């Protein structure tokens, strides 16, 4: 018997219908987007819910809107679509680079940005890239739409700031403009690898000094995190070797755990190295991905 056989599936035709279903305790169900997290969880023993509300393909969740200073990406947009979009690549290169490292082709074709964020795994690859934009998650419910800064979105291990009646509609993300972004992931292999550590950064330089630095890492804490101590230290600094060394050392203050993917020691070290990597790249003005 298939896992899905005992479940009741709803396919709301519009967002409004989906929101109505979620508003009521009785009709509420587990949201299903691409299913690439959920199906794996159910297959590995997590008790499957009775009721599923599929939001896969809802047009309201599939928009990409580019305005002057921001990009709005629907929660239902797939990794494949992000990775292939030249415009997103221009304005949010860390995010598209992260999307391109998720699983492999099949997973990218099915997995969504909203699902990656809502699943709230510390190893979710797009999370650090979202975090460094300083943007917002746009949440919808029958009560209306509200926005939560991404820095407050991941509230604890596998927990997010959305209420049970809310659906993530989109992510409103400031463009990088003149800043430079970078995303680097360390995994056990080139594809289908859950990150040991990954790091995204967005940094703006002016006249040889760092105007602003946003650096976020994943897989080193219960949630994806910004390295605020490093960011604060870097603000206004020139990128000298001692500054880079100090930033790397500060980055190593993270407190990761050891698990089957890596050791705490390695993760601490690699976090420092990935911060150095971002700063060196900035210094040498290599490609700004």
């Amino acid at each position, binding site marked *: 018997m298939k896992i899905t056989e005992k479940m009741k599936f709803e396919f709301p035709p519009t967002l409004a219908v989906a929101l109505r279903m979620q508003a009521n305790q009785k009709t509420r169900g587990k949201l299903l987007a691409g299913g690439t997290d959920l199906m794996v969880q159910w297959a590995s023993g997590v008790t499957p819910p009775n009721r599923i509300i599929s939001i896969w393909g809802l047009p309201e969740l599939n928009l990409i809107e580019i305005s002057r200073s921001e990009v709005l990406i629907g929660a239902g947009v797939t990794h494949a679509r992000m990775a292939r979009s030249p415009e997103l690549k221009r304005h949010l290169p860390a995010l598209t680079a992260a999307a391109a490292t998720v699983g492999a082709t099949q997973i990218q074709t099915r997995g969504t940005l909203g699902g990656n964020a809502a699943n709230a795994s510390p190893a979710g690859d797009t999370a650090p890239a979202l975090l460094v934009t300083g943007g917002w998650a746009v949440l919808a419910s029958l009560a209306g739409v509200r926005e939560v800064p991404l820095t407050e979105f991941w509230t604890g291990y596998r927990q997010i700031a959305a209420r049970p009646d809310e659906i993530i509609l989109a992510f409103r993300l400031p463009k990088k403009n003149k800043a430079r972004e970078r995303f680097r992931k360390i995994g056990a292999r080139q*594809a289908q690898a859950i990150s040991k550590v990954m790091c995204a950064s967005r940094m703006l330089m002016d006249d040889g000094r760092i105007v602003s630095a946003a650096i976020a890492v994943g897989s080193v804490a219960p949630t994806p995190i910004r390295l605020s101590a490093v960011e604060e230290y870097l603000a206004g600094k020139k990128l000298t070797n001692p500054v880079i060394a100090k930033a790397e050392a500060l980055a190593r203050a993270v407190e990761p755990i050891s698990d*089957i993917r890596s050791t705490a020691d390695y993760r601490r070290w*690699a976090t420092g190295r990935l911060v150095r*990597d971002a700063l060196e790249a900035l210094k040498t003005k290599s490609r700004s991905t």
Partner: protein
Amino acid sequence: MSNPTANFKQVNHSVTKVDARQLALGKPSYVDDFRPPNALVVKMLWSPHAHARIVSMDVSEAEKMPGVKAVLWHGNVPRIPHATAGQGFPEPSPYDTFMFDTKVRFVGDRVAAVAAETEEQALAALECIKVEYEKLQPVFTIDEAMAEGAPIIHDEPDAYVPIPIPYEPQKNLVARVGAEVGDFEKGMKEADFTFDDTYETPYAQHCPIEPYVSLAQLDSAGRIVITTSTQVPFHCRRIVAQILDVPVQKIRVIKPRIGGGFGSKQEVLLEDVVAMFALRTGRPCIWRFTREENFRTGRTRHPIRVRIRLGAKKDGTITAIGMDCWNNTGAYGGHGLTVVSCCGSKVLPLYRCENIHFLGKVYYTNLPCGGAYRGFGATQAFFAFESSMDKMAEALGMDPVRFRQMNHIRSGEGSPIFAALGEGKEGVPMTVGSNALAECIVRGAEEIGWSNRTDWREKTGRYRRGMGMACLMQGSSIPHIDMGGASIKINEDGSFNLLVGATDLGTGSDTVLAQIAAEELCTTTDKMIVYSSDTDMTPFDVGAYASSTTYLSGEAVRKAAADAKRQILHTGAEMLGLAEKDVLCKDAHVQTPDGKQKVSYGDIACYALYQKNQYQIIGTASHVTGKSPPPFAAHYTEIEVDTWTGNIKVLRYVSTIDCGTAINPALCEGQTEGGTLNGISYALTEEYLFNENGRMMNANFTDYHIFSMRDAPRIKAIIVPSYEDTGPFGAKSVSEICINGPAPAIANAIYNATGARLYEFPFTPEKVLNAIRAVQA
């Protein structure tokens, strides 16, 4: 000398695999494709403990569960000690396994089995089996197993080993084997440089696409027909007969197409249970492992600790080689002795040396069980040995290639190791015949650009490139032990039924054997209808292991074909009214040398079957080899190390191979590339992770990392021909050797890139980084 391969019409050509079409079209081919609609599904309750005694057990509730037709447990099956390893008989492995026992010895050991109408019903019934365990102290390492007063894993009085070899279960010792040549200590004293290093090699699983799966049903005569994913159908029949205490006559084992084995299916792990259920229920019963079961309960590569002591003179002469191996065989001892024996026998002859010490010891632990895995001990030992060879070359100030060129075995030379180390008994003295290693080394060096290699001390920056290499050998079948049989008969249209016990498990051996038969019979490969393997229909063959099918079974096929050819010539000559000496076989005809008079094989078959002096033209032959000619290989790789993260990228890999005549060059390249990739994955990313209770934590493809296509580097396979006089049309083996290269070649390349020497793999970023930090500190 004229090139014997020049006139080959069938062998040494890349003909299409005989089963390619049916597999590409998805036709029913594999065990599970033959599941009858009324088959019961088998599920097993596995031990959650690494080491425990079953104090009490109650299956009565499970027996009453909906859909349940039978439950098997130690209370209702015969208790017969046996080995699950499919090897020659009597086996060089202890009889330390019971269908069900009152003790469990690893997480994943059998406790009780259920056969039910559906999988859900079987799983639900398992939940109702009540087991009370008395937990015992587990043994997780070789050191714990060897320790004074260690818990005894096999304390049952009825375990024994059926041949006279050391077996001391009260010390957790499964086997011990050694060899001394010359005077090792003296050789070490004579050396200008000596090394003494210890290496560790890890667990790994074969990860065939098709997991273990077996189906048993009773035929109308009441015989048990087992269709199973096996590399050893005949051993399977014998072992199932033994476990069930029924005559061999009552059992038929059919091997359909197999979705890969790589050694894992040289084992009888499911067949006894499905057969017993079929007997008890009268219903067809199927059991297929999940991927998790494949990892936890399926067989693995034995982790082995290898100590290498090496001595050499300033001029590069090797004066002493010492190899001590400690083999962790896990909870049951199958293949323990033979694997450790191959650490010595398939490695030590590679270099000339007068003073050799070898000692292999095998210990039980409460971890998953080692078994046969491509490379079979040689893989583990070559990592250690070829790493030490590089260390020695550096001490001598000699290029590692040069050092190996100076010392490697040549054609016409023997090694005392061949005679000293066999499979549970002494080996067979042998001199090496075909040997193109010298050319392999040169061709590989050219291809990789070895002359551009620089010392690690000259390298700077974050990304550092390094080159490494390793020389390798293996064997081809087990001399005087392995036997293969074949028979071949002609049909009215000049086609032939080729019946072989040899076991194609996806390797393409049916194709290779058809080519050999066609070559000998002067016809074409497409005229062969190959059937492998079915214990009711095909002659005996030990099965697919020990790199034996092409060399051993291939020669049986060639001899059977020669036998049929004699009969064809006889009848053809009779039809032409000529003497046999005046005709020959050519292009599926018997003809006069000038071709003026000829008669086709089809007409000969019709004549023999229907017209005059009728008989069935049928050739049959068996083959046992007197030698195990080593294939040789030189592997080269160039890698890039990210010294910041410890990440290793294999940029290029060159696998040269001397497999004698490549019967099917495309398949040989396939084996070479596949084995190499298999080895790279083993070297870099694969590992068994256990928790403190001995449970494997990553028994799935998410967390057990085999290489993906995106990881695959450029692999260049170069077949360097030689001609092995004792093999069919000059062939020897190709399938195992290639997995031996990547671990040492990459280890040597990491050293060449960074100065960091790793004694343990997989070379994960964590390990590499630690080693690099140690060098830089």
